[in-house]
């Protein structure tokens, strides 16, 4: 076996990471101060200019109440980004933690957990979440709770698998052999090596959460009117699809761009973490 004397990790283009991050940064900015970028009040009715097609005054046109679609789409960024973050934050933290402990200690907890995973993945995610929202009632808070109740399982499954792999590597044996305690081994040694796929999946999961939030919004189970949310905006426009395409198309594009941004950023982060190894 030859021993490589490598000096630096291979240089990679960080284009995906940069583009993804820029998209997310712009979205975050819009979400923080939508009032500064939106030209109009997203809730102001204008009965003289309903269903107006895109023009210089209204770049994205207006809806059936004459509300400016550009402003509504921009304001909706705040709601959808909230959905992306709030509905995944608890699952990623709690799920990863549980998965790490189960992967590290194994035993009966592992057996029980795997059956739980089997049960959860048997149901389509959307159906499960709709079921929980139906019980809790519609609204954003209940949406976060519903997604969180299901989503943590996926992070736990991922973290468990990663820890199982890392546990078998020599550096984990070395850490145990050096007399380190389980907490130190788990959080300082195994977690940094296992976190790459978790972060990458989290990015993707935020995009999925936006899609889910929009789907539920579209179905009337998520954000409630008059709050602008991409899914509810599309639902607003569905009756005017043939005459006023702009009501559905622009929020739809926003969803696509958001998903694109999260995916690219996730891929970029994954590349970055791989390069470090």
């Amino acid at each position: 076996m030859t021993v490589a004397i490598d000096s630096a990790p291979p240089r990679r283009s960080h284009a995906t990471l940069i583009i993804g991050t820029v998209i997310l940064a712009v979205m975050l900015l819009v979400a923080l101060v939508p009032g500064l970028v939106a030209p109009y009040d997203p809730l102001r009715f204008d009965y003289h200019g309903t269903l107006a097609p895109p023009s210089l005054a209204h770049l994205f046109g207006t809806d059936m109440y004459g509300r400016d679609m550009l402003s509504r789409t921009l304001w909706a960024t705040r709601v959808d980004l909230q959905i992306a973050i709030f509905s995944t934050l608890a699952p990623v933290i709690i799920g990863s933690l549980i998965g790490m402990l189960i992967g590290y200690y194994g035993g009966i907890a592992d057996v029980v957990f795997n059956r739980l995973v089997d049960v959860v993945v048997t149901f389509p995610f959307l159906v499960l979440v709709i079921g929980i929202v139906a019980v809790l009632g519609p609204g954003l808070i209940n949406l976060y709770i519903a997604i969180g109740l299901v989503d943590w399982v996926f992070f736990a499954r991922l973290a468990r698998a990663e820890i199982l792999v890392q546990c078998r590597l020599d550096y984990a044996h070395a850490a145990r052999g050096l007399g380190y305690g389980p907490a130190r081994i788990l959080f300082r040694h195994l977690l940094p090596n296992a976190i790459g796929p978790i972060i990458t999946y989290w990015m993707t999961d935020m995009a999925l959460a936006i899609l889910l939030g929009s789907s539920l919004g579209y179905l009337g189970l998520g954000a409630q009117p008059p709050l602008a949310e991409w899914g509810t905006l599309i639902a607003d426009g569905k009756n005017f699809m043939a005459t006023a395409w702009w009501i559905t198309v622009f929020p739809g594009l926003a969803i696509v761009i958001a998903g694109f941004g999260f995916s690219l950023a996730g891929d970029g982060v994954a590349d970055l973490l791989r390069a470090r190894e």
Partner: protein
Amino acid sequence: MTENLLEVHGLRTEFHSGGRRFAAVDGIDFAVRPGEILGIVGESGSGKSATLRSILGLIKPPGRVEGQILWRGQDIQGLAPAALRRIRGAEIAMIFQDPTSALNPVLTIGQQIRESLAAHTDLSATERQRRAIELLDLVGIPAAARRLDDYPYQFSGGIRQRAMIAIALAAKPALLLADEPTTALDVTIQDQIIKLILRLAAELRMSVILVTHDLGVVAESCDRVAVMYAGRIMETAPVASLFQTPRHAYTLGLLQSIPQGRAPRTPLPSIPGVPPRPGDVTKGCGFAPRCSFAEPECRSGRPEARRMAPHHLTWCRRADALPEPA
């Protein structure tokens, strides 16, 4: 006779594979004295590494370790996790075959040395930093202070193994378990690492168990050697005694297959057959199926230890029938 640092009695390490249990280590006894360098030689799969990992308690369920492992007279196996952690790293440290995988890729060498110091010493942060530089210096890494903030991937294989040794030695252990520390390295580097380990053992008055499959390494470095085959010890003796008068058919076969002192272009003798696979159960001597001296009795019961000289033990029934090596 000084007191033994480590005593292993009836060590048996079992693993699960394909629904079956098999013993990677099948009832072995040995001891390590203070300052002694004990070599364990054997082929791949003979149980050398499993022995070391058992000593340090690194065998995880469903693997199982039986027998007594006495550290300074105290059985390690019964210890509470906290007490075991005070021995691991602080008194017994281990280095691995492949330093690339044994170092944590996401922490700098400095962080990893300081962490070991923090876990086992009372040094302050600035003292740990100073000590980390000393340790890198001690293991012969040039420009130690500058390399402290480097990640493992920035080192060559030999330097990585030196860094691994520095981490292992941070808490000044009394026993170093070296699991084929040179197998993954270039030949020229191998010699440097062995010499380094010997120098450090002498300087720090540290015992070493050196696991290897290289008889040359054993000859140049060890005080005593145990030959393992199929999970059992075949013969243990002082190095000179083992090389001059091997008293086990397997040892004899190993020594005869070293290309040394032979006329050029003569075929090298080899041991016929292949080592048993894990899980193959041999009733008698593990080596009997491949042994050209074996008699029917060799295949029936496990051989008893026989003392051929004060420190020379063999588990070979046919020890008296073996020829002197050429």
